[in-house]
């Protein structure tokens, strides 16, 4: 599958972070959409499917965890990465039940975005 066919949804309320991730992943050849909040993300998911979600945890409105659970209900094939500024966050039971693990967590600041691409490649294969 070519990278352009892989659809990534970036959700982050911080503009620069969202724009950076989007730009980097687009430069890597992925098709990327972005949302400022969980609600907006769910709206986008109603219109089309996404393969990968890069989710910030602290979001206005619903938080990243809830967003992942809801997104999983809508599109169960979708895989998720967590991009968080929290230092103490670990995967809660509800998320590990749908296949997430601590290796899916990227802590901010993510100095080398190549790491992100590495996991996306693994998940999308």
């Amino acid at each position, binding site marked *: 599958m070519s990278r352009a066919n892989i659809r990534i949804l970036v959700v982050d309320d*911080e503009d*620069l*972070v969202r724009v*950076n*991730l989007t*730009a*980097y992943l687009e*430069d890597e050849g992925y098709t990327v959409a972005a949302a400022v909040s969980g609600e907006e993300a769910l709206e986008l998911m109603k219109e089309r499917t996404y393969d990968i979600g890069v989710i910030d945890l*602290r979001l206005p409105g619903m938080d990243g965890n809830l967003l992942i659970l809801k997104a999983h209900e809508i599109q169960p094939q979708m895989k998720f990465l967590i991009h968080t*500024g*929290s*230092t*103490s966050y*670990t995967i809660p039971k509800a998320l590990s039940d749908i296949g997430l693990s601590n290796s899916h967590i990227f*802590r*901010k*600041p*993510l*100095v*080398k*975005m190549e790491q992100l691409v590495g996991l996306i490649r693994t998940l999308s294969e």
Partner: protein
Amino acid sequence: MKIQPKLSLYFFLIAGLTTMAATFFAIYSVNRRYENIAEQEIASSKKMAESIFYENLGDLTRKATFLSELKEVIENIANPDELAMALESKFFFLSNLNIKIMDPAHRIVVGQDNSTPSNINQANIGQLPFFHPEWDPLLRDAGIFQVGQGIAIYSYSPIVEPETFELKGLMLLELPLNSVFTDEIKEKTKAEILIYLGDAKIASTFMDVNGQRYFPELTTLGTQQKILQSTFLLDSFPINDYSNRTLGRVFVGVNIQDIIEAKQVGIRSLILVFLAVIALGAVMGLFIGRRISRPLLVLSKGADSISKGHFDVAIDVASRDEVGQLARVFTQMASSLKEQTEEMSHMRLYLQNIIDSMPSVLIGVDTRGSITQWNQQAQKATGISQDQAFGKRVQDVFPFLEKQMETVQRAIAERMPQKTERVTAPVNGDSHYLDVMVYPLISNGLEGAVIRVDDVTTRVRIEEMMIQTEKMMSVGGLAAGMAHEINNPLGGIIQASQNVLRRLSRDLEKNAEVARECGTDLDQIIRYMEKREILKFLGGIRECGERAASIVENMLSFSRRSESRKSTTNLAVLLDKTVQLAANDYDLKKKYDFRHIEIRREFDPDLPDVPCVATEIQQVLLNLLKNAAQAMFRNPDDRKPPRINLRLRRDGGYVCMEIEDNGPGMDESTRKRIFEPFFTTKDVGVGTGLGLSVSYFIVTNNHQGNMMVESIPGQGTTFVIYLPLERGSA
């Protein structure tokens, strides 16, 4: 002087003096008695001799009268021969008498022949004083006269014809006072008789050894005189003549030799008795002295042994007298003393035990600072025994107390306890903190003070550590709060710079594409960027962002709990791996060649695995190894090859890791702050000042362990890490 000889002497003196007095009195009495006997004897002998002497006077008159009246005499007066014969044959008693008969013409008719040793003869008869020229036929007389050399008693009686009273003659009797006469007296009186007329020695009853008459020279009358080996007591009476003239003396001598000898025997016996009594007295004195002194001696010995502390003596004096009573009192006293002493020593032991059980060093001193009390802790701290310490000055034993002696004096003077906290003193090569308290001794007038020294090093270290932890926790809390807020913009900076650089690189096809769409050329843009060093600035932004991110990351570890990632780890293996890592560390290799450092390992082979986050512990160890290497190379000492000692051992419920270098060490102020975040001794930019604080946090917070540093400037530094073998609950 001891009591026994004293008593003996007293008794001896009393007995001796008494006996001596008694003996003297007895001797005096005996003397008197014998003198009396002698005096009585001489008196009676003299009296008897005197009476015999004068009896003879009368007797001679009676004899003369008797003879003149004899018929044969009257009838034969004309026939003197027959007359003489008749007288001689008939009158034996006249043997010692000289008989002279004279006729009326004064012619001696009988006794003129001198056949007897008479003094009187025809020539000297006229000298007789009572011899008158005319004889009275009735007159008779007698007297003592000295005629010529002799002395005699003379008596006369006229011879008268009884019918006619015709005077026919004169009868004259002469009794010479010679030795025959004295022998007669001696026979009656048993006393020796002497008749001396002045110098003329007339008669004597003394006979010398040859049977010759002996006439002793008389010295003082009435006294004793030695005559012919015998002692005589002499007395005398005078011989008076007719006209009462003293012609000489009759001496009466009583032999008192026997009396003297008897007296001497008596006195000798008395002296013997005296000596015997004295001897007996001495023996008795000794005996009594011993008898009295022996219990006293036993008592004294008992008391002596009591005074030496042997209270178990039973003073064995059986007597019921005062000494016996005293002995019993002493024995009782000893047993009560023993009880009290035991109680006292028990009390003292108890108190000593209390003092010794104190964890503090307790030193008693007098006002001059000499040691009077020394507890076990003091002994332990100095290695100086109690006996060695007594009397020494405190500062000689504890040199660091030199400065405290003023405090001691002040405590004594003001009677107020003084306290000096955290005095630093070297103990076994380490620097220790000591609290010194001085309490003045104010009771019972005993001047001095008690110095109490507590080693508060551990407490001080714990306090330091708590402060450290507190600091770190506050940093951790702050960091956790800040991290989230900083990380987002930091992420923006870093990722944006990454994107900018990517979008200026030739690697992305899209970059050239977009450049062309904009009517320019990517190469031109890059050239411009390079020329203006914009790419370098961008790289700088990125690098600085990354550095800031790593600082935040490190700070975040202060609040991070990593319990879930702990796994049992073999620390020996981990340590070896870390050493290898350090040796290959590029940064390290650049400046300090780790291979030049000698690594010594002292690993306990039976060490159990330790539950820990291996990566974190490795981070800690690497940090310490790097620090050690840097420290040793920063101050190279050529004479001292760099060396790191690694030790692993079990210590109770902990495993103890030690990393010791022989570098320059650090001073006290550095050591205190070494774990503080952002504290660094390295040049600005070389270290963040977080390495050791993060290590500290990893050990103490994440692993519930302990981390300490010990250092002696100039000798080296040792980091000690304790990790618990049991998983902590936190």
